[in-house]
């Protein structure tokens, strides 16, 4: 058996001959009905290694790490830990053996302090005081500064992730799994994370790192295992590959370039925001102040900015999830809509894609057809005299599946069973297929693989070419540079004047994102307004 493994899975750099891997999966298989989410995967993780796990959306990455962490039971195959076979009954057993995991979506309570959140996630029975002391010590040791007494709502996304990492480190894991940790981080926050990961590696720990950002994988990782359609296709040294060659292995072909179709013309204003100010609806929200912009048909406006500067509040005000007193603050297709509900705004031709896929953009426990109905009931002929036309809802699912290559185990699964990127493709598809006049979309390619991201960006460009007005909020400046005509920056609830994309250099955007203004004169003017 031992010899057999070696042959199956030659270590790429030949460094490890003689020792045994820290963790090994052998023929690990996870089946959902007839669908193989993981098909006989062999993977070796060695100590002192940062191991990347790459693959398209739905390739089976999260499924594999969930099995290793004991969250799901494999259908076949085995997991070996330090050479011995283990069967994990659940995450607490994985943790007690020294396997830690940081999930992409945080599980923190906003109104509790950092220390309380950490205490809730630990299995041990040490006193709260001891635990707080250890928390402070661990966070100091690793250069992950955290104030145990702050409440979570006051923290940035990067700081929240720090809590999750410190919580995992307090269990002193020999092996740490991170599922798309940088998807939500600013570049600076990501850099800080990499320093910590290098240090953990130097201490002899192993790390399994899932990411769609190939440049960062090349920089950080020693080994990469690539999954495609649930199967392992390759184990390689990412430093010897290019981002393009890694992407080719992931998709098994070339990735399409996003092309801005020629001859895009701007037409009439389709979305106008006039001096929109709105008090926050929740205690921890941001106040929107004097936001104005005009978006014409055929145009894509990008909104950049660090998360938590009012982007969510702006989305709610534009979509009609929050109404404003003055109808004239939001004008859709020439009609004052500030006081109209989200359904009425959809009837005017607007469509919306929120940032959070599960629980906001979709009801997780409902089928895709029901989620098509969720936003389609107002204007897409899915409802006749109060009765649901199931065939029409299914048709939307099929069309979105086909147009955007949504990969799923069956025709009409629950939304929660789709992989993150595939659900995103479905949501974007659902809205674009309605041919909206105005599309407001937040983080369109969060956690979406390179190939699918290209498909989504292309769709947004095509929609604008067809005459729609598109508003894209994104933290990814490269994405905005690729598709937007103009870019504005959100800071502390205010929106800067948009810059033409050609003039929006990283330096200028960086200044605006940090709250400085480009010219002192403009600032004076803005205050006067």
């Amino acid at each position, binding site marked *: 058996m031992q010899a057999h493994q070696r042959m199956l899975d030659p270590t790429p750099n030949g460094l490890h001959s003689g020792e045994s891997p820290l963790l090994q999966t052998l023929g690990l298989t996870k089946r959902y009905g007839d669908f193989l989410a993981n098909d006989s995967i062999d993977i070796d993780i060695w100590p002192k290694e940062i191991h990347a796990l790459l693959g398209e959306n739905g390739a089976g990455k999260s499924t594999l790490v969930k099995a290793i962490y004991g969250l799901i039971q494999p259908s076949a195959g085995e997991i070996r830990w330090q050479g011995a076979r283990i069967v994990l009954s*659940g995450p607490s057993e994985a943790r007690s053996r020294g396997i830690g995991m940081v999930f992409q979506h945080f599980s923190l309570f906003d109104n509790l302090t950092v220390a309380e959140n950490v205490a809730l996630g630990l*299995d041990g029975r040490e006193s709260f005081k001891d635990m707080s002391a250890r928390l402070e010590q661990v966070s100091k040791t690793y250069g992950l500064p955290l104030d145990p007494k702050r409440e979570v709502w006051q923290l940035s996304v990067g700081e929240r992730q720090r809590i999750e990492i410190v919580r995992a480190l307090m269990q002193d894991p020999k092996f740490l799994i991170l599922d798309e940790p940088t998807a939500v981080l600013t570049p600076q926050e990501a850099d800080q994370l990499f320093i910590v990961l290098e240090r953990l590696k130097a*201490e002899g720990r192993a790390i399994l790192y899932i990411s769609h950002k190939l440049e960062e994988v090349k920089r950080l990782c020693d080994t990469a295992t690539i999954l495609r359609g649930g199967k392992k296709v390759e184990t390689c040294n990412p430093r010897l590959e290019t981002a393009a060659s890694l992407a080719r292995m992931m998709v098994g072909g070339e990735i399409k370039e996003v092309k801005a179709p020629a001859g895009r013309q701007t037409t009439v204003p389709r979305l106008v925001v006039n001096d929109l100010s709105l008090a926050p609806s929740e205690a921890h929200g941001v106040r929107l102040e004097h936001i104005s912009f005009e978006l014409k048909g055929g145009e894509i406006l990008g909104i950049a900015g660090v998360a938590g500067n009012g982007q969510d509040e702006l989305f709610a005000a534009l*979509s009609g999830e929050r109404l404003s007193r003055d109808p004239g603050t939001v004008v859709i297709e020439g009609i004052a809509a500030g006081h109209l509900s989200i359904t009425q705004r959809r009837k005017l031709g607007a469509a919306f894609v929120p940032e959070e896929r599960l629980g*906001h953009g979709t*009801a*997780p426990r*409902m089928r895709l057809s029901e989620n098509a*109905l969720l936003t389609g009931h107002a204007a897409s002929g899915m409802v006749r005299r109060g*009765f649901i036309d199931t065939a029409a809802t299914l048709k939307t699912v099929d069309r979105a599946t086909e147009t955007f290559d949504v990969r799923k185990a069956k025709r009409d699964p629950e939304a929660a069973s789709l992989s993150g990127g595939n659900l995103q493709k479905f949501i974007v598809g659902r809205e674009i297929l309605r041919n909206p006049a105005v599309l407001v979309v937040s983080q369109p390619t969060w956690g979406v693989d390179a190939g699918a991201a290209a498909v989504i960006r292309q769709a947004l460009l095509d929609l604008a070419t067809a005459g729609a007005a598109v508003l894209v909020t994104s933290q990814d400046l490269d994405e905005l540079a690729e598709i937007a005509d103009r870019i504005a920056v959100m800071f502390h609830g205010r929106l800067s004047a948009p810059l033409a994309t050609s003039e929006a250099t990283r330096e200028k955007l960086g200044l605006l994102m940090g709250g400085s203004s480009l010219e002192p004169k403009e600032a004076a003017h803005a205050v006067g307004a």
Partner: protein
Amino acid sequence: MQLVLEKRAERSNTIALVSPLIAIGLTIVTMTILFAILGKNPLLALHAYFVAPLTDSYSLQEIAVKATPLVMIAIGLSLCYLANAWNIGAEGQFLIGAVAGSWIAVKTQGTDAGAWVLPAMLVLAAAAGALYALIPAICKVKFGASEILTSLMLVYVADLFLDYLVRGPWRDPHGFNFPTTAEFDPVATVPLLIEGGRLHLGSIIALLVVAAAAILLGRTIKGFEIRVVGAAPRAARFGGFNANQLIILTFAVSGALAGLAGIIEVAGPVGHLQPGISPGYGFTAIIVAFLGRLNPLGILIAGLFLALTFIGGEQAQIAMKIPLDVTKVFQGILLFYVLACDSLILYRFKLVFPNRQVARGTG
């Protein structure tokens, strides 16, 4: 060693189906122990509860008669619960419906009023039940008052109001001072389905309500709205559905159904208005709704099952002198187990051995 509840990664659909059966099994085990403690032969008691009522036609009809209000009320409650609106006061809405409908019966008594009387009673009872349920719903939406508390409090208000009426203004002058109205006229009485039997038109109405709820939840946009608002409130708001409107709507519908059940009970099996017309139908229906998994067909089955416990309880009292209150104990234990077993759909039990040693071993 420690027993912990751990979240399942995947929702267990098998457990979702068998959890009511597990709950019933556990309840029966507990009841067996309870009967033994009461000094009764558990086997005979269980036989009296669950088997004897199924063996003669009178009891079978009586089960359907008892199931009628339970099912009608539980269907309304299930709409509320699906939409995350917690109506606990169906008992009060049941009583108010009975009172409002009886008002027409009392006022037309002895006159030559025609066939309009019964339909008018049904409509008025439903309207009164709905209005009564709207009180907690509006307090919830306007002032944020807990609908659980307010709807429950209003049960006692309704109970005392009924008591006042039958002891005061509506008391039958020839009733030897019993607190009851006179027997309703034939035009104010729910017709029987079998001459000389117990089964009445109300059971047909209950079946229609079940069918209507199944269509509402499965086929219409309103039903979808109810399910989304409960299952994913934020997504529902994004879908353009208004949770507050739904609280109002589902409370009104469940109040109307409870009120309708109330007048059908009074104008049917009871025949006149008096205190104690309900052995706690409005509360037992909460158990029916959950045991039936908030699903119309499930509620129909669960309603028949709980009706069986009412009849069985009466038989056990007659045959073995087991106190009637044991039926309430039974129903309470059942609800407890139903809710407990439901958590197994999303969680599982696990034995954990303390192994901090391993966790901190090296590194």
